[in-house]
């Protein structure tokens, strides 16, 4: 039976097909676009076109790699400063999301079972409105003659409008607001699965509820904390829309630099190089961390 199976049959074999789908998906939507970006970053602009990486001369391919964009990134302090600033804002956003999201997810997971679907809906409710609209709405709230300042002034709580717009406050507010659900959802999924008997066992061994939270609940929800933090941190580093609309000119974010390189300077290789460096900055520590975690869970400690 197996002898008669051709290559096509083998490929269409149910097992291979099912395993193949995610690989195909990954190849098409992640690996190939990344390779294209990598290729562009190693080229240079020729007029309005990106140079070819491979020339065909007299039937022989000639490979030209151009590292000038990378050299520029490393030598121009603006890029390094922007990278550091992006990571700083992303880290602060992640931390704030964690501080706000953890208690939220905790009480959601502990609330009566019949209320949980509704609470989950409330978390996802903002997604029903356009992201751009919601960020824009913050703008009308935060500007000098915006809703919040007007109310505070009419109540004579403040004399002059608070500077809440186009600074790091408005940027972080927008980022935390937008990314909070991505922190809460994995945390909730993790915390709702926590076996309450561990807490009983801790109490039985003389641990007060407050201490048991730090000694049992938090360590056991580590996977949720990591998942949520990754989901917030990674997109936050490259965020473009929120810094553009709420951040003003004083807040440096790499997403805006990227945009400028692509659409103001039309320097595609430079923009691609900026993107590649950003990916490396995020991916490398993640890969190292993942590897150490995998080793730890295998009990090689």
């Amino acid at each position, binding site marked *: 039976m197996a002898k008669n199976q051709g290559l096509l049959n083998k490929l269409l074999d149910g097992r291979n097909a099912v395993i193949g789908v995610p690989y195909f998906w990954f190849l098409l939507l992640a690996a190939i676009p990344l390779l294209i970006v990598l290729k562009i970053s190693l080229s240079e602009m020729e007029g309005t076109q990106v140079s070819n990486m491979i020339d065909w001369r007299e039937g022989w391919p000639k490979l030209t790699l151009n590292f000038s964009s990378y050299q520029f990134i490393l030598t121009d302090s603006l890029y390094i400063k922007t990278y550091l600033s992006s990571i700083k804002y992303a880290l602060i956003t992640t931390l704030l999301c964690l501080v706000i999201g953890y208690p939220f997810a905790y009480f959601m997971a502990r609330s009566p079972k019949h209320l949980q679907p509704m609470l989950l809906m409330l978390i996802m409710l903002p997604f029903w409105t356009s992201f751009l609209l919601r960020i824009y709405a913050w703008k009308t709230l935060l500007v000098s003659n915006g809703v919040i300042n007007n109310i505070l002034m009419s109540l004579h709580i403040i004399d002059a409008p608070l500077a809440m717009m186009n600074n790091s406050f408005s940027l972080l507010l927008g980022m935390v607001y937008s990314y909070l659900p991505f922190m809460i959802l994995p945390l909730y999924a993790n915390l709702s699965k926590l*076996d309450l*008997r*561990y807490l*009983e*066992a*801790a*109490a*039985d*061994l*003389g*641990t*007060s*509820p407050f*201490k048991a939270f730090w*000694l*049992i609940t938090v*360590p*056991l929800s*580590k996977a949720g904390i990591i998942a949520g933090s990754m989901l917030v941190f990674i997109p936050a580093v490259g965020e473009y829309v929120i810094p553009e609309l709420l951040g003003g000119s004083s807040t440096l974010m790499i997403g805006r630099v990227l945009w400028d390189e692509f659409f103001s300077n039309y320097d595609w290789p430079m923009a691609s190089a900026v993107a590649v460096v950003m990916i490396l900055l995020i991916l490398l520590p993640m890969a190292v961390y993942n590897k150490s975690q995998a080793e730890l869970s295998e*009990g090689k*400690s």
Partner: protein
Amino acid sequence: MATTAKENSKPAQDVLLRVEGLTKIYDGTVKAVDDVSLTVTKGEIFALLGGSGCGKSTLLRMLAGFEIPTKGKIFLANQDITNLPPYQRPINMMFQSYALFPHLSVWENVAFGLKRDGMPKDEIAARVEAMLSLAQLNKYAKRKPHQLSGGQQQRVALVRSLAKRPQLLLLDEPLGALDKKLRETTQLELVNIIEEVGVTCVLVTHDQEEAMTMASRIAVMSEGYFLQVGAPDAVYEMPNSRQVADFIGNVNIFDGVIEEDEADHVTVRCAECVHYVGHGVSGHSGMAVGVALRPEKIILSKEKPKGDYNWCAGEVIEIVYFGAHTTYHLKLDSGKVIKAQELNNTRDLSFGLTWGDRAYAQWNDLAMVVLTQ
């Protein structure tokens, strides 16, 4: 009557745990535990035995402090602990599924409770080492719980609950998660460790074998209250009600009426036979009673027994082979089916009886219990 050699061998000891009229009502109507009172003396292993939903777990959880009683009091060494939170009670519990902290190593699991007490580091280390060697787990100290076998996890759970030297140890279905073969060895290990430490135990189980082999006293529970409390042999051989007789082991119950009621014997007339009981019972002639007869106390034969008492005849309708013994189901002439258990003391298993044979069941005059309740 309800004492064993085990208990008699110890001098009169003080009461460690006293429970008075403990009641737990859920949602205003469901009585999980109904006015239970009990005392446990120091060094005793006390078992709460019952089917699921009989309230044994709720009772245990109230002792641990996880459930607040609706009514009643709990005293530990004469101190009222009814309203103490679990983390302030000198009671530790071994959980049914062990509840070992998955993110901590075996060593850290055992040290967990000691660290909370603020014990000096070197003392903790010494205590943990002692505990681990008690359970022969020293070489697994650095492992995480999921890297251990079921039996090893069970021993970690036990020494973790013993590490703080609790006054009272609670065991919730301690062997429930183990397979049958492992149970037998683990059961003995468990009892050995507990006796070495000398801690008082309250044990919850639905497994009568577990209760009988481990406990010095058993309370049979049903619907939130105690049906009978006594030593394992007393509960087995002298059940005080049909429910207890039925719950502990297999039993044949004959319904009948007391005919002769003498000081040294009674006779009970049933539809199937006349029972001659070789001791007096608290009853009167004409009283309706049940006669409980354990299957292993019946002797089967093909020949009709002599005498008028303590035998009946029927047809073999089922033969169930268990290895060590065989159970025969006998359909009596009245239509009642009784079980008789014969020891397979030779390798010739046929025993001369097969399906459809007419067989005679007989028993001696001290084999049965007259149930007046």
